[in-house]
């Protein structure tokens, strides 16, 4: 198949409830990320999409744990098993191979350091030897910022500029994969568009792979080549952007799309309403996790073994009736 950069196999990440019990935030999830693609993972809060990002970065801390599975990063010359990395390996893996930007840029930026010093710190931590000055300027320019920014403190920057600095910082060690966790959620619409534009451009010019995590399908569709829909710790549908948006096969994906309001939504149109709440992930779930809320469930769904079914080229859905529903609707 095509050239992959990251393989995730049967990953399970558990959050401790503090009383000996665990919430399975990610449930036996498998995923391939391709080299040079941008993959958007869309889901609602608690669906596990951010947990996946933290798991890839190995940022899951005790008492929470990655209970099972494998994450393999396919480097140019060798394969890195991310879950087996030691402390030093991990430090080089983070930022040099995979970098991350967050919803709040302040998660990356140190409020009491000038922007340029933050870069230098990063370079020193990752043994980068070449001309710091040149490198800082290069990446600030790439992120659409002027040299003036170097001498400023984070609080002197606007929200959009902060996010640009954090993008520049994330890219400055030349990672091959960038994970962006809701990078534009806290920003105004005009700035959001600018940042999304920028990210899309960077992907092409630097041949980056991007995992884009968001709750907003319209944001996802602006930047992604492929879209994966998260529900209850699993990816229930994944496929090319246009396939997922125009021919969603999973009932959840369909409902999610129907509940979005954009400028082209007619006034007063009844929005799709998703009744009930997601399942309790601290308990064993039999069959399909969407069963109880699903308008088209049948008995067999309860014994479904969660094998993704192919419904089109490069389009996989975790629903027994996917093909049937697609055929009847489109």
């Amino acid at each position, binding site marked *: 198949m095509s050239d992959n950069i990251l393989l995730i196999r049967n990953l399970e990440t558990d959050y401790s409830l503090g009383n000996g019990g665990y919430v399975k935030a990610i449930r036996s999830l498998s995923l391939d990320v391709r080299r040079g693609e941008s993959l958007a993972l869309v889901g*609602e*809060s608690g669906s596990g999409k951010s947990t996946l990002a933290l798991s890839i970065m190995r940022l899951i801390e005790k008492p929470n744990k990655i209970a099972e599975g494998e994450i393999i990063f396919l480097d140019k010359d060798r394969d890195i098993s991310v879950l087996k990395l030691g402390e030093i390996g991990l430090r080089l893996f983070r930022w040099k191979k995979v970098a991350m930007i967050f919803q709040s840029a302040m998660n990356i930026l140190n409020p009491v350091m000038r922007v340029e010093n933050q870069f230098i710190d990063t370079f020193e931590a990752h043994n980068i030897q070449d001309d710091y000055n040149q490198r800082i300027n290069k990446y600030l320019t790439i992120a659409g910022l002027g040299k003036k920014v170097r001498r400023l403190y984070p609080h002197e920057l*606007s929200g959009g500029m902060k996010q640009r600095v954090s993008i520049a910082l994330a890219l400055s060690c030349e990672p091959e994969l960038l994970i962006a966790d809701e990078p534009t959620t806290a920003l*105004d*619409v*005009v700035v*959001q*568009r*600018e940042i*999304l*534009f920028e990210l899309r451009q960077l992907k092409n010019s630097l041949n980056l792979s991007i995992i884009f995590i968001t*709750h*907003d*399908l*319209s*944001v996802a*569709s*602006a930047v992604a080549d492929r879209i994966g829909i998260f529900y209850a710790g699993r990816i229930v549908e994944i496929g090319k952007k*246009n396939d997922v*948006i125009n021919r969603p096969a999973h009932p959840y994906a369909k*409902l*999610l*799309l*129907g*509940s*979005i*309001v*954009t*400028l*082209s*939504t007619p*006034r*007063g*149109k*009844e*929005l*799709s*309403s*998703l009744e009930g*709440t997601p399942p309790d992930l601290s308990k064993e779930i039999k069959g399909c996790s969407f069963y109880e809320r699903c308008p088209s469930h049948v008995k067999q769904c309860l014994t479904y073994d969660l094998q993704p079914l192919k419904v089109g080229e490069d389009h996989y859905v975790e629903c027994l009736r996917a093909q049937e529903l697609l055929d009847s609707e489109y």
Partner: protein
Amino acid sequence: MESQISINENNPTDGTQNDLIRFVDVTKIFKSGHVRNYALDKVNLSIKEGESLSIVGESGSGKSTLGLVAVNLLRINSGKILFQGKDISRLRGASLRSFRRNTQMVFQDPYSSLNPYNTIYQSVIAPVNANRQYYENLTGEKADSRSHLRDRVAEMLDLVGLTPGQNFLDLYPKKLSGGQRQRVALARSLILRPRLIVADEPTSMLDVSISAQVLNLLTKLKKDFKFSVMYISHELGTSKYISDKMAVMNLGRVVEYGSSDEITENPMHPYTDILIKSMLEVGGFRTEEPLAKIDFGQYNGGIVGCTFAHSCPFVTDQCLKERPQLERKENDHWVACFHPLGR
């Protein structure tokens, strides 16, 4: 009497009696040190009975401040706010409290708009307890027995989709999800049958599917209770979805006002144009063309000319020297710009 003239000139309404609330030259200044920050700079607007108006703008545009002064949680520095023809901006004490029966607010953060130590019943019944006599006149029923009031609150909870309402009465907010809390907040705001609901980004902290439920609910309640809505949001999609009227704000001023369809389809103010082009659709960007960069960084209030002049691609000398007034350009479309688009 002199302000009467300025109303007719500047206020984008027909000046008829059916204005529910009307803002006349409303100005609110926040001082920080020596800097006078104009959160609202001579705002003129009105909402009719049963109408809904969306206030859109980016952060810092003053839209939330406008919501707070509409319900008199903030005092204005100058201007007037006429509610059913009466100036309410300087009310105090008991007369202020009786005005408050007419307006209610739904807040952005459902996690802090309910008191965690109060049960759902206690939260929803609070307005009735504070306005016992008014409530009795309103409903024509005695409001003295607790079981009767509990039934009324349960009915209200049913109406906002918390069914069966009886089961929710004695719960504490922590047992409810964000969407459920926002429903409780709606129930509380509706129990005195107010004429105006100010909703300040009521869905921005909710998940997409939950937000859709709240929007559906708001649409339904608006029909059933026939109240006016002032819907405040940075998000044009939901703003247009909820309201037939829209006002676009920028740095404390209303730059465009009119029917939401008109504004979103044929924006006249360059700022509105950029806002709309920046919105996303399911499928991607609305336009691939490069847009002018907006930078409001260095100004905060007290601007002589147009607030958008420094980012505007069509700026002229006039824009820097003179403040453009809101003027009617089409039947239901007002814009504050010397060089409106499409003209």
